[in-house]
């Protein structure tokens, strides 16, 4: 049925070259965005259990603490503070150095950060962001205060000293206790070290693949078939998506504004419910909730739509030949438009709650791509099943509900007990959410392992779905 097309005059070498350079570009961009996560694997020193505090830190105090940290990279240090539940004034300056503070030479200072203690809440953490490569395994901390007086100063939590946690020195005196400091950073990974080599090798392999798949003259090659399908049916998909999108809000007054309003209003309701009735101590709960809501909503909606795509288009399928995968695919795509639109209220919420918009946000398209592939896979699977067993749609209603509860959408993931962690690990949606939230709330790229999870699940489901769909599609007409 394929149209005879001559591919021989297309220069496959040129194609391979273009693919290679695009790939390189992406690799560069990725390195730029997620250098830290590429190079290092998370490694952290837990803070010791707090047992005491070091007393008020007032103007002129100098507290020194030595920390052992064997990571190759330091991203942040977390201090636990207390304000005695009162209003304090002044600032606290934390200096981190890789050399002992024998001299007051600025050149040794690794990181220095000053906090306004007036804004501190009781029992909150002070985070010193470093984001630097670390050479020595020993860090020297120095805490000084400015403008704080007794009765008007904060304190830090501390624990008894041990071998791992040496004693702090307050104004030259060892006090036998050790500051509660959590150190976060990373260990250099092989991937990170060899990033460019790997990028290059993969690039070459990719170019080779392009050469093979898009080889000249042979229309049956996978790549050529894909190109042909895109050429042939791209417009159809475009039209179907348009149709879905147009008809969705047809005859409603607000029209596609609902794409904004819907997640926003849902979030507000959920926020009110969960932050007042079921209190939780999640940072920036609105964003936490909204991000999950949008992603999970997209998942249920697109899979729910894709599920009925074959049955719903029965009249078309029995009349006109169009590759059948187009129906679930276009359904997912049309829902994806909603997903993109609903990013706007999300970004709005991010902005309002004071999160920073960082370069890591450029990674969101990757997440969406994985999500879409995953949903397409699911749609293939379920729409096939739907044709033969119409019970599927009702079952899906239940399953998606269970799925929702098995995914930390409005509760923190920490409430899942350790021995049930497989629920999270094996749940693709959990990984997508985690990925999303890392970007949104921490402003950094997720760990490399998360990338693997995301793309892995997406491809796995897509593959299974496509295989099942392909095997069954010839029988569809008979059951419609």
């Amino acid at each position, binding site marked *: 049925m394929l149209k005879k097309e001559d591919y021989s005059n297309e220069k496959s070498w040129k194609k391979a070259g273009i693919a290679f350079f695009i790939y390189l570009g992406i690799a560069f961009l990725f390195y730029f965005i997620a250098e830290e996560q590429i190079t290092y694997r998370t490694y952290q020193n837990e803070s010791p259990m707090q047992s005491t505090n070091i007393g008020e830190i007032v103007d002129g105090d100098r507290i020194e603490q030595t920390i052992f940290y064997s990571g190759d990279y330091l991203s942040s240090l977390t201090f636990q503070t207390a304000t005695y539940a009162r209003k304090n004034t002044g600032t606290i300056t934390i200096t981190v150095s890789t050399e002992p503070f024998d001299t007051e030479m600025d050149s040794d200072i690794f990181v220095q950060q000053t906090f306004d203690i007036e804004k501190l809440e009781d029992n909150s953490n002070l985070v010193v962001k470093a984001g630097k490569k670390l050479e020595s395994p020993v860090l020297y901390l120095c805490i000084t205060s400015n403008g704080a007086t007794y009765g008007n100063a904060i304190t830090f939590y501390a624990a008894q000293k041990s071998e791992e946690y040496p004693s702090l020195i307050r104004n030259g005196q060892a006090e036998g206790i050790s500051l509660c400091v959590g150190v976060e950073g990373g260990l250099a990974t092989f991937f990170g070290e060899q990033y460019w080599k790997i990028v290059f090798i993969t690039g070459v392999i990719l170019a080779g693949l392009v050469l093979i798949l898009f080889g000249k003259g042979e229309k049956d090659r996978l790549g050529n078939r894909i190109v042909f399908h895109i050429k042939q049916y791209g*417009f*159809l998909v475009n039209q179907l998506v348009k149709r879905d999108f*147009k008809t969705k809000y047809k005859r409603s007054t607000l029209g596609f504004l609902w794409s904004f309003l819907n997640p926003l209003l849902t979030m507000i309701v959920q926020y009110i419910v969960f932050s007042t009735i079921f209190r939780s101590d999640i940072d920036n709960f609105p964003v936490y909730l909204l991000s999950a809501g949008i992603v999970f909503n997209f998942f249920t909606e697109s899979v729910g739509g894709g599920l009925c795509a074959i049955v719903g288009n029965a009249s078309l399928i*029995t*009349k*006109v030949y169009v590759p059948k995968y187009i129906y679930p695919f276009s359904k997912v795509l049309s829902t994806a438009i909603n997903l993109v639109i609903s990013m706007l209220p999300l970004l709005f919420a991010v902005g309002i709650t004071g999160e920073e918009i960082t370069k890591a946000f450029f990674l969101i398209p990757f997440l969406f791509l994985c999500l879409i592939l995953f949903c397409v896979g699911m749609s293939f699977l379920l729409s096939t099943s739907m044709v033969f067993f*119409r019970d599927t749609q009702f079952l899906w209603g239940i399953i998606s509900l269970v799925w929702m509860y098995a995914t930390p959408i409005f509760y923190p993931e920490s409430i899942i007990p350790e021995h049930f962690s497989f629920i999270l690990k094996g749940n693709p949606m959990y990984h997508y959410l985690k990925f999303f939230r890392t970007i949104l709330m921490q402003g950094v790229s997720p760990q490399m392992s998360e990338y693997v999870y995301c793309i892995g699940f997406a491809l796995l489901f897509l593959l299974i779905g496509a295989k099942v769909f392909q095997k069954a599609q010839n029988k569809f007409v008979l059951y419609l």
Partner: protein
Amino acid sequence: MIQVENISMRFRMANDRIVSLKEYVIARLKGQLKYRDFWVFQDISFEVGKGEVVGIIGKNGAGKSTLLKIIAGVLTPTKGSVSVQGKVVPMLELGSGFDMELSGRENIFLNGSILGYGREFLEEHYGEILEFSQLQEFIDMPIRNYSSGMLMRLAFSIATIVKPEVLIVDEILAVGDEAFQKKSKRKMLELMSGGTTVLFVSHSIEQIREMCNRVVWLENGKINLIGEAKKVCDAYQEFMNPTVDLKESIQERTRKTDAEKYYMDVLLVYGVLGEEYEWRVHNQKEQLLAGNMAAAESYYQEITEKMIARYRVFIFIGCPGTEEVISYIKKLKAYHKTVLIDCSGILEWKNNRIYRNCKAEIHGIVAATGLVEEAAKKEGFLVYRNLDVCSDRMEQLSEWAVYDREILPDLDVNQMSGDMEVVNYYRAVKKKEERKNRNLRIGCFCLEKEMVERLAEAVFTVDPQAELYLHPNLQLSSRMERYRGRIFYFESMEREKLPGIYADLDLVLGIERECAEEDSEKRQLYQQWIYAGLVKIPFFIWVSKKEEELIDMIQNNRITAADEISFYQTVKKWYQKEKWRKEWIEQIFSQVKKEVTAINTGGRFTRWIQKQETAQIVFLLKKETEKEKQKRIFTCAKNCWKKGRDVLLLWDDAVGDLAKGTTISELARSEVYLYGSFDRVVAAEWEDCDFLRSYSQIRIRIFLQQEKQWQLYASGDYRRFQRRQLYFSCTEILFLVREEFFTAHSELFIGEYAKVKVLPDKEEEWDRVILEEENLEDKREERIIRKQ
């Protein structure tokens, strides 16, 4: 372009269609998952070349649409493969993929994309689509507001905008109003002529015939026939509306109902046994026996309950439509028997009282002619042709039936009053047909040399190819030499050969000199021939000084032209006054009597008559005729009839007496067209008229002049006649009654079959009334002549 190779299509039907997972699992576990396989078709192969228009026909469920869907790629065949080169546009159903919420414009793009058109293409042809669909004003309206016609128009316009390489069409030519239908058909034809390969399914065989080059006929999952459109369509139509072969169908039914019994019992039920019916019964019985079927015969009066139980098929031949018979038929229907009626002619069938009263009960008609067959099929009856009635007359009818559509395309059967009329009409048309193929033949009996020469010059100026036939005694001058080869002479002007001579001519100019002299013997003879209808010549110039004669000729359509017709009005008056007709009949009688005598004297005339092909012959039977002579006359008349000539039998009161003799029954059984003045016949004993029931073309006029006669009928004779009258399906009875004798009492016994005409008081006016009646009859004849 399209190769279909050995494709088979199977539909699986689970014993109970399993639609839910639970049922499936349970059935699977129990091992009860059985399927019933249904092969829509098996092992079908054919090829379609580029630019061909191929139609697919077959009954409902033959798999036409499935085949199209497979070729369109919607379905995948269970076995085999289909390969199609080129872009396929399937028009399996128009407008699939329309979204009701979107506007027409948006739907053009949506539907277009589904059909596989690209964006640029659609943008480019958008205007064209719009124009073709004529929906400019509505295009931005959501199509849920469209009428279904508008939707179809839009859909058709989108589907056909492209010039696809392969177009697959499933019954979609009836789109929109008539104007649009025409337009769409034109568009389709345009596509077809433009080298597009078309696959086409339609139930309209006419459409297929018109549009396709080749046709594939699917039947029972196989290709029954594939080939040229006309051939396949004809075969298909024959298959769908078969002329049921009685033998086969009865056998078929027997096999279905009772496998052990190979034959089936047929009872031939007849009411009367004239020669014709006897023959039919005999013939049909023989055919049934030949087909291994038991057949018995019985009078309808003799049918018993036992017989009803015994036989399965009842064929009614010549049964009267009495209450008795009708109740039998209704009973038979209740017993689920097959009832057929036997008809020789269409009018016989339509006037058949059984048919009239038991339309719902009878299953079919055993027809002798194609005409009957056609008409009966139109009314939804089974028609059995195998039991042809093969009497001479029927053979002619069949002959006609063969030609019916070719020669008589405009024949309106309902306009005809009898089968004979149809036959005559056919002959006339056939003759005309023959005349077309030869030169014009002009006869001239005139002996005046100058006149003839003038005439000849005039004729040849008009038509140089004409043939001029002249009197053998005429000597033409030498200047006529140049017409050699165009001028012929009659072999002889002997009296008895004249009818033959006349009949061969297309035009007669002038008559023999002898005849121009009034009251000459020859002239009278000609007149007689003409009046008797023996000579039917389209143009006849009759030279006469007698106005009355001319007018008479014209009046009776004996001739179509005369030289002095201005006397028409005056003569008409005379015509009404004089009882001229009686004289003429007398003359004819006396003339023919002479000829009949000739049989006795040497048989010259007999032989001559039998040799002729076209003449119409008058025979006369008179009371005085000896019985031997009657016999001879009859043999002669019969033979003439068999040769295909119209025989006019004139008789007088002789019949009443003759009926008692043996000869008259022979007379009755011969296939002779009867024409007589029956006033005296009716007065005779009714028993003697039994023979009449063989005829269907009798018109009887009963002329009641005396009260005594009326009383005679009232006493029962007429009633007996009335009962018999049922046998004559076409008989008309007219009572001409003096008013004084017409009472309410009379009305009672006349019944529904006879007409009554009241005669005026004055005896002088009776003739007028009678004439009027006769004119009515004449008008019928006129109609035929006009058609010619």
